[in-house]
């Protein structure tokens, strides 16, 4: 009888623990909705700082917005996301972004080698 009580108490604790697991995770993903959690956080951190200014849905830079919108990419289906990542890889490998003209005005906007490597590891799928 005592054993049974102990066993069910353990089981109950286990259920509680498992229930709590995803809740512990959720605060780590600010603003990104569940279905859109495609882009890893370390990548988003670089994007936010170095790309997002021009490449977002509200961007005043028409060309930048048209070529790439990170919000759209984050919500894109697999085929579109893979195609876009391939193009991002090519642009990064050619050091085409951020544009030279932009860097003349804002040299601190340049991607560091480390940031470029972070983005490339993700976009080319050669992570870890």
């Amino acid at each position, binding site marked *: 009888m005592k054993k049974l009580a102990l066993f069910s108490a353990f089981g109950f604790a286990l259920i509680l623990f498992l229930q709590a697991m995803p809740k512990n995770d959720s605060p780590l993903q600010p603003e990104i909705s569940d279905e859109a959690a495609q882009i890893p956080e370390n990548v988003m951190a670089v994007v936010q700082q170095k790309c997002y200014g021009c490449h977002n849905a509200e961007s005043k830079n028409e060309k930048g917005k048209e070529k790439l919108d990170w919000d759209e990419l984050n919500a894109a*289906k*697999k*085929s*579109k996301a*893979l*195609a*876009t*990542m*391939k*193009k991002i890889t*090519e642009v990064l490998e050619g050091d085409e972004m951020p544009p030279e003209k932009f860097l003349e005005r804002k040299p601190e906007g340049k991607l560091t080698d480390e940031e470029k490597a972070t983005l490339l590891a993700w976009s080319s799928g050669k992570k870890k």
Partner: protein
Amino acid sequence: MSKLWKYVGIGLLIVLIAIQLVPNELPSVKSENPADIHESPWMEEEISIVIKKACYDCHSNQTNYPWYSHVAPFSWLVAKDIREGREELNFSEWENYDPLDQLAILDDIYGEVEEEEMPLPIYTWVHWDAKLEDSERKALMEWAERTMDKIAETIE
């Protein structure tokens, strides 16, 4: 006055003849293309017709050279456009591209056709039959998207 025009005319004629001597090589035509997109599972009858009439002159090894494409200065423009066109996308080399490249290309096709960037206006200006109807644009875009989904399924 009329004498001046005569000289100008003769001068122009000489220049026109002289520029024919400038070396200019038109990209070669190949009839056997084992890697052509028509050999892939993705080609569809209706799309094949549209692509062949509107894209294949520049985006394949099966260019149809009209007579004036051998005459400078048109030949220079034709050679340049076809060289660059094949470089960007060559439907005759389709199976040699890796699947991610194919996805990126199809995504570009969707955008270029949607924005009416392609076929180039200077091309359709001469090739009326290559002008895309709205229904053909829509069909191409839908095919590109459909094919992207199918290719994406084969990845990972």
